[in-house]
């Protein structure tokens, strides 16, 4: 599918976007509309949380390039267990992938992602990488039927903002964790207790 790629020169964030990781957007593939679709570029694609906090108590993020573009990186390890100095405590549960299945780290370059055909793409292009294995989801996403959105239901009436794959899915542990639901409605119907929960009481 052809995807007209527009490069939007949005203000670069203070966390240090390099020329490689400019936020991107694509116009509607269906042509009739004039509204723009902007895809989120979450900070985790170009920076990492440090153990220091800012005055508001939020972890200070450090751009990947801060270390990786100035220092010689070690060889990309097999699994997070092999990490000894940096990125410690990283949880990983994403099939049989190895670190190097997706990551490349060349000396004195911002970290990049490696597609299956060997092409290197910047971290901010993570969706291309995900799409290699998760084709049906990517197809649905492009059709507007996966991933959610905010803004306008019709691109001829307004713009739209889309989530990035990694906004909802942690690429290292993609399974969605269980969440506590929002409060239920207290309407005038008696509360029926599900049989399973009744038995547990």
């Amino acid at each position, binding site marked *: 599918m052809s995807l007209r790629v527009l490069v939007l020169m949005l203000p670069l964030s203070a966390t240090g976007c390099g020329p490689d990781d400019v936020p991107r957007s694509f116009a509607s593939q*269906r042509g*009739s509309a004039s509204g723009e679709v902007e895809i989120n570029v979450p900070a985790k694609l170009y920076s990492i949380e440090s153990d220091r906090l800012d005055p508001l108590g939020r972890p200070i993020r450090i751009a990947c390039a801060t270390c990786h573009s100035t220092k010689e990186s070690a060889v990309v390890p097999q699994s997070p267990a092999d990490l000894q100095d940096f990125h410690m405590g990283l949880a990983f549960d994403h099939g049989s992938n190895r670190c190097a299945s997706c990551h490349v780290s060349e000396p004195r370059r911002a970290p990049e992602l490696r597609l299956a055909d060997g092409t290197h793409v910047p971290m901010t292009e993570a969706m291309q990488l995900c799409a290699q294995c998760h084709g*049906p989801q990517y197809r*649905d996403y492009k*059709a*507007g*039927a*996966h*991933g*959610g*959105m*905010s*803004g*306008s*239901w*019709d691109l001829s*009436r*307004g713009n739209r903002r889309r*989530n990035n794959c990694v906004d*909802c899915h942690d690429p290292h542990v993609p399974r*969605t964790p*269980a*969440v*506590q*639901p*929002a*409060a*239920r*409605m*207290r*309407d*005038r119907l008696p*509360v*029926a*207790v*599900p049989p399973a*929960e009744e038995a547990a009481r």
Partner: protein
Amino acid sequence: MTPTRRRTLKVLGATLGASAFAYAMEPLQAFTNNLTLDEFLQGHFRELTPEALAAAIARLEAETREKHGREVTIRADLPIEGVEFGYALNLSICVGCRKCAEACHIENNHDRASNNSYIRVFEMKQGSMDFENGHADYEHAVPAQDKFYLPVQCQQCDNPPCTKVCPVEATWQEPDGIVVVDYNWCIGCRYCEAACPYHARRFNWTAPEIASEDINPNQGYLSNRIRPQGVVEKCTFCLHRTRRGELPACLEACPTGARVFGNLLDPNSEIRWVLANKRVFVLKEELGTRPRFFYFFDK
């Protein structure tokens, strides 16, 4: 005049009759105290002239200012030509977190005490579409094992049973498919609530109570303006948003992206892509209500 037995009984009877009548009419007194003459004389929404509508809106805005201490804007957006709204929901993705119901509660100025919402999320047994086994009152972490989650709101039927039973025509279907209620015309008989096979309508047993800072000031005459006591209300696909091109609040709130909304008449819309490419179904198809709300599973 000499007091005769006949005259005494007459006076006594008349006094008793008058007091019984006054006692019987007393609830009406309380009722009319809450009802201004303008409100009482206001016509049906579809028969209002533009001037009368503007006057009604000005009165409602003033009432909100007075009763709730909040400046609000009430609009009566018209249906957009060539647009019929449709909704689809991916049941493979929905985790039952009720964020949609919560967003509805806030967007539509629902009563805070009852935590009312136009969306009821059913926890259903996997492999069954039987609502007898579904529960909307779960409190545990979601998604639970062997369950799927089925949010149900107004299906905006093309053949709505609810509008047909209204004895005063206070509810009807708009050209863009949205079934609406004129809250100032509704008499609160709840026939429509009983007629709806999806349990999508709600009755205002009490006047909704909302703190003034929690009121959503972006209001629609036929949608989320603060409802009076004793009328029926329902989901309108957030027409005060969607008729202005915005997405419904429940869709924007969905953290999993399970919801798809759009124009059924636009062959290039997202909703049409879903209808063409997914195996969609509707709830209680056998009733012939022809819902504009579609459900599908990915696998």
